[in-house]
């Protein structure tokens, strides 16, 4: 609805409420028709598949491993509190939170630096330099760390030379490094977007009113960049909670995370109902985390 339309319909309303209602209904149908193809598509290839996870999570498993849509039971869900599963879940959650926090710590000063470069040209060039790793293949970027952390990799050689660390590949720290490296660009971009469109005149005003540099930052810059912090944290936390490629390539068999546990259920273990229950659980955690974060998140940062 645009201004002119509104004025027109307001006139029509005075003349005939029926005509106005009809115009509004037609407008409503137009909106619906534009959305319809995507709506139908996503219903068929997103919403219904999403629901089917929960159907399968109550199914049972035949001896061949094929899921049977009969003998409905809660076994898969009760297995979620199994100590082994719990250990993996706690490890995944810790990794995801630590990864989000570390990405935020690394990315904030970095995004701030880019956003406050005075010259537009420099800023654009720096932004392009950030976008390239963001668009580069995630798998390739993870593979790079496999090279670096393997026995003849540069990081391992450096660690051995200084006596600080040995071969890190297939350990938990390796997975952690991979996660930080993989998801860092997802934190940088929303932070940059928020800081870039910020009105820096406000900071200047604060400084003019004798706020110290750090106070101006805490009271003005930080709150104004909150949307970026929230968006970035969600973009890092959720995929790292379900991470599969990184732990698989850098963690080997030792560092199992939820993502690997799920994939195993669909491949080697052939326990689809349990895999579905795990996916369903992650989905619920994800939705709850997103909602909590959107509602209260900003204030605590």
């Amino acid at each position: 609805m645009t201004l002119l339309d509104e004025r027109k319909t307001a006139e029509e309303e005075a003349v005939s409420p029926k005509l106005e209602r009809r115009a509004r209904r037609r407008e409503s149908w137009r909106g619906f028709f534009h959305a319809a193809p995507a709506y139908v598509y996503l219903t068929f290839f997103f919403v219904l598949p999403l629901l089917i996870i929960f159907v399968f999570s109550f199914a049972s498993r035949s001896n061949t491993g094929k899921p049977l849509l009969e003998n409905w039971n809660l076994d898969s869900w009760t297995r979620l509190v199994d100590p082994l599963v719990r250990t993996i879940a706690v490890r995944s959650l810790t990794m995801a939170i630590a990864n989000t926090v570390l990405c935020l710590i690394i990315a904030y000063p970095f995004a701030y630096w880019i956003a406050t470069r005075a010259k537009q040209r420099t800023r654009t060039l720096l932004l392009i330099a950030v976008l390239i790793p963001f668009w580069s293949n995630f798998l390739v970027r993870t593979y790079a760390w496999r090279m670096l952390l393997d026995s003849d990799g540069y990081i391992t050689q450096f660690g051995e030379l200084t006596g600080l660390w040995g071969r890190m590949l297939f350990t938990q720290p390796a997975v952690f490094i991979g996660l930080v490296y993989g998801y860092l660009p997802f934190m940088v971009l929303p932070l940059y977007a928020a800081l870039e469109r910020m009105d820096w005149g406000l900071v200047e005003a604060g400084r003019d009113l004798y706020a110290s540099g750090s106070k101006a930052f805490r009271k003005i810059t930080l709150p104004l960049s909150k949307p970026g912090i929230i968006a970035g944290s969600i973009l890092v936390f959720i995929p790292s909670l379900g991470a599969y490629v990184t732990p698989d390539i850098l963690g080997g068999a030792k560092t199992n995370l939820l993502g690997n546990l799920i994939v195993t259920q669909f491949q080697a273990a052939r326990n689809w109902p349990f895999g579905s229950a795990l996916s369903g659980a992650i989905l619920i955690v994800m939705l709850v985390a997103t909602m909590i974060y959107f509602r209260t998140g900003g204030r605590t940062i």
Partner: protein
Amino acid sequence: MTTLHQGAATRPRLDRSLTIWGWLVFAFLYLPILIVVVFSFSGSESVGRWGGFSLRWYEQMFANEQLMNALENSIVVALISTAVATVLGTAAALSLDRYRRWIGRGAFDGLLYLPVIIPDVTMAVMLLLWFTSTDVVELGRGSITLAHIAFNISFVAIVVRARLAHMDPLMEDAAADLYANRWQAFRRVTLPLIMPGVLGGALLALTLSLDDVVITSFVQGPGSTTLPVYVFGLIRRTVTPVINAVSTLMIAVSMVLVLASLTFQNRTGRRTESKERNQ
């Protein structure tokens, strides 16, 4: 313009530490990629040892039939899924930005964001369950394409919507006043104005489709493996410098796509400051 951000960094010492930090982060982001690229040109059998300049891994890559087949699958899937997702996603963005009230709008708005934030593994699992239990389509290129469209619609819609939010809707009214019908107004006014967004969304969709490993590996069938999934298998099974060569190829493609995207974004004028409706 040069004084725009003066309030931010007036202290030289802070400024210097920020600069050092900035370049350190850039080093962290780029050195690993750079090492992969450099070693793709090494003649040594060992993945991480320099053995003189050589293109043998590239030769092996192009001679590898399975790999080339996977590349072909990747390209076909990426092109089709991008084309479909761009049309559907753009229409979806228009429906949300241009029409404020229609049945199911709120639900659609939320639904559109879900495929973006859902973990890959979850989406992979649900689509596998869906395809195997409905029997509508055999697992193969078709199912991979359908899956890619499903996540790409959302990304296109978000990018286009951001562009629409910056567009002045009075432009369309002006066209209407000059007796353009709805289609003409869209074709001649709206579409050219949001074109950078549409192309940007399409390139993002193309990239995401070319990059996807987890979802594709779940919904693929025999012979329909895409390049990243094939490479993922290679990385797990063996250590061979051919992976470096493929990786370099993939990085080169992403760089081309980023630069193309940025060119499109900048070509049709800088974003107008008129409307800041997002966020």
